[in-house]
């Protein structure tokens, strides 16, 4: 008699807990995947093409995986200018250093040397890379 009673399944409280955990994880996962969706569909910048003829890329948007190298300048009207190093080195192994302009719209970003960022950049006039979106991976 007592053996029959032990085989009746999981207690209710555990099931509720599991349901809550699944719901929370799903929400979190859904939230996180929503911001990464635009970077996932954006093409990665080819630095060799950029170096050779940035004008030909003007107006295009690319994503870059970079590490902040140094701050080059800070303008109250245009934003901040940084040099960043692509995480992915060039074919010959030389580091690829690019200038990026972080506009005033992204002024809330805290950017420091050595930080790792995924950035969505647009090639604007004069071949400058203007950051449209940035987040830490």
């Amino acid at each position, binding site marked *: 008699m007592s053996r029959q009673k032990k085989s009746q399944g999981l207690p209710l409280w555990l099931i509720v807990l599991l349901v809550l955990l699944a719901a929370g994880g799903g929400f979190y996962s859904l939230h996180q995947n929503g911001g990464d969706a635009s970077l996932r569909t954006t093409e990665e910048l080819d630095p060799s093409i950029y*170096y050779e003829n940035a004008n030909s890329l003007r107006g295009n948007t690319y994503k870059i995986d970079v590490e902040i190298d140094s701050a*080059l300048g*800070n303008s*109250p009207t245009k934003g901040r200018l940084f040099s960043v190093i692509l995480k992915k080195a060039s074919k010959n192994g030389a580091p690829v*250093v*690019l*200038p990026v302009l972080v506009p005033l719209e992204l002024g809330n970003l805290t950017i420091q040397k050595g930080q790792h960022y995924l950035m969505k950049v647009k*090639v*604007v006039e004069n*071949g400058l890379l203007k950051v449209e979106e940035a987040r830490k991976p």
Partner: protein
Amino acid sequence: MMKRTLWDGSLAVFLITFGSVCAQIPNAQTIHETGQQYKEGNPLTGASDNLAIGSQAMFEANLKAKKNIVDMKPNTFLSLWNNPGFAIQFEKYLSAPAETSEDAKLYRQRMDKIMELLAPGNATKQNQDEAFNLLPLASEFESDANNCTTIHDAVYAAANARLQIQKLTEVDRALETQLSASQYNQLHEAQSLTLPSIAPGKNDVADNNANENELRTAKMDPSKSRVAVLKQTIQRNQAQIASAELQAKFALQSLILQLFVQRRYQHVIIIDRFYRALFDDGDQSLEQFAQMADKMGYNKAAGQVKLIADANPKGATAAGSGNNGPHGGVGASAGTGKDGAGASVGNDYYNNNNGMDASAISGSGLHMGVENLSVESAENAFVTGMKGASRTFKSLSQLDAFANEVIRDVNEGVKVYRFLLEKSEIESAASQLASVFTKGEYLPSVRLLSQDEKRKTLAYAQLCNRLVNAANSGNIDALSEVVSQMKQMNPSFDDAEILAKLQGVKTASSLLVAQAKVAASKGDLQVVQTQITRAAALWPNNPEVTNFSSEMSKLGNVARPEVQALADFDQFEGQHNYRQIFDDKEKYIAAIAMDDSTRKTMRQEKLRKVLARMQEIETSIMRSQEIARRGDDAGAWEGLEMTFSQYPDDQKLSQLRADLTTQAPDFVHDVRQAKSYEERKEYGSALAWYLRSQSRYPMSDLSKQGIQRLVRMIMPDAS
């Protein structure tokens, strides 16, 4: 203070260097100047020799030029001006006023009156006396030059001779009467002579005959002597008569010819008519004059005085006619050659008595100038002149006809002159006037031309005079100017030959300059001097001669190192060849220190800048070389690149920069790409390249400066 020390030190270095060079090559300047000749072992030419050579060259060149130009006679009128005697006389005439004064008018009236009184048909004894009395009156005027008085005296003397002849003739006639009587008396005495006819004895016959002869002689001697004396007296008188006539005729004929040569044709006609009146025996020949001329001796050893100058034009006339006889005929010719005149006459008169004399006259105008003048040679010339005249003119009729012809010709020439002048044909008009002046300077029609009528010719004549003078001086430029003026005044002036000669002389001068240049390139200064002197003598203002002299001065300065150094400095500085100046800086420092020209300050400033610049370049090079030795090729290149951007024209810097470029090619490429984009104002790309170059060589100043510069361009308000 520092600068002063630098200059002084440099000067000392230069002086020491220069002194040592001079010590090694004694007399170096002389060797340089004498050039190749010295090297070839030719003896050095002294200054005096060079001077002599130059003088000789100048003399020869001058002669050549003068001969070339003076020999040309493109125009008739111009050729006259090659005779200075004529030129002076003619110019004086052109400047003289017309003889329209009352005195001149009265003189002409008296001359006309004399000629009228003596004209054929009017020459009665009374008219002859009146004309004779008018001669002294006509001679009162200056333009007559006392010729009428001379005629008056000669006619008077001839008339006296005629009187003497008449007296002697009358005496002779009386003596002949006396002689006839004496001869008759002598015959009568001879017929009435009584002598003892029988001798006393046979042996007394011889003595008796001797006594008879003595007696006969004693009785006949007085009458014989008287007859002989009368005969001798008559013969002597006849000789005196002949001599007096001969002398009188000769005197007048000589005067006629003299006046003819003087071109006093009116006087010739006057005295000719007096002559005919005085010697009315029908003998019009100049035989006495010819005989006298033939009898005069000629001293061959003395040579002959030469009269030089030829007034030109050369006249010639000829006449001839036959007399309808079977063999009668006459020929005459006259002509002017290049250097003289000639005349010849031929007739058949003496062989056939059926022709007439021909006449042939050739004149050669006015001769002036004397050569080989001495008493003997002058006598020879006089004799030759007399003989020539006696052969040219055979009779007074010829002279008279010729004088009349000349007067007519001159009068016509004056009319032609006025016409040509009116038509502005200056050359022809001037030639015509010169011709009438030469032929009949003293004729009224010539003397009556007004100053206004002669003014154009005077101006043209003066130009001609200047032309000849310019030609004689050998001044090509002056000659060209005069030719131009003549052409302007007289468009018909034939300047082709003159211009051709001028061009020839100019070309010759230029060729001599070219030869001088060739000689200069060989260092043959003697030939240079000779040729350039000749060139200058031919064409003193030849610009090539002037330029050559300037070049020679420069060549001469080569012998002075400091002058050459200054010239080199100016040249290198002008060419921006600062490296060359820097390499020989000691020389230029010393030369500029010794520079005593007004450019010294400017040169000093330039040299200072050059040295500062080169110092910076050299420092950069040394620094880069040191960096490169440490293996930092990019750093070495960058150091040079920064200096190179300031001084891109330095060869050494450029070469070293090129060498280092190959040592750090990636870095150099990045920097150059960055600069390229920066110049194209693609600041984003340029910044990317600078960042890249900086990543390769983090110590790069170029990259750092570029980045800073571009950040300011992208964000002018960046902090």
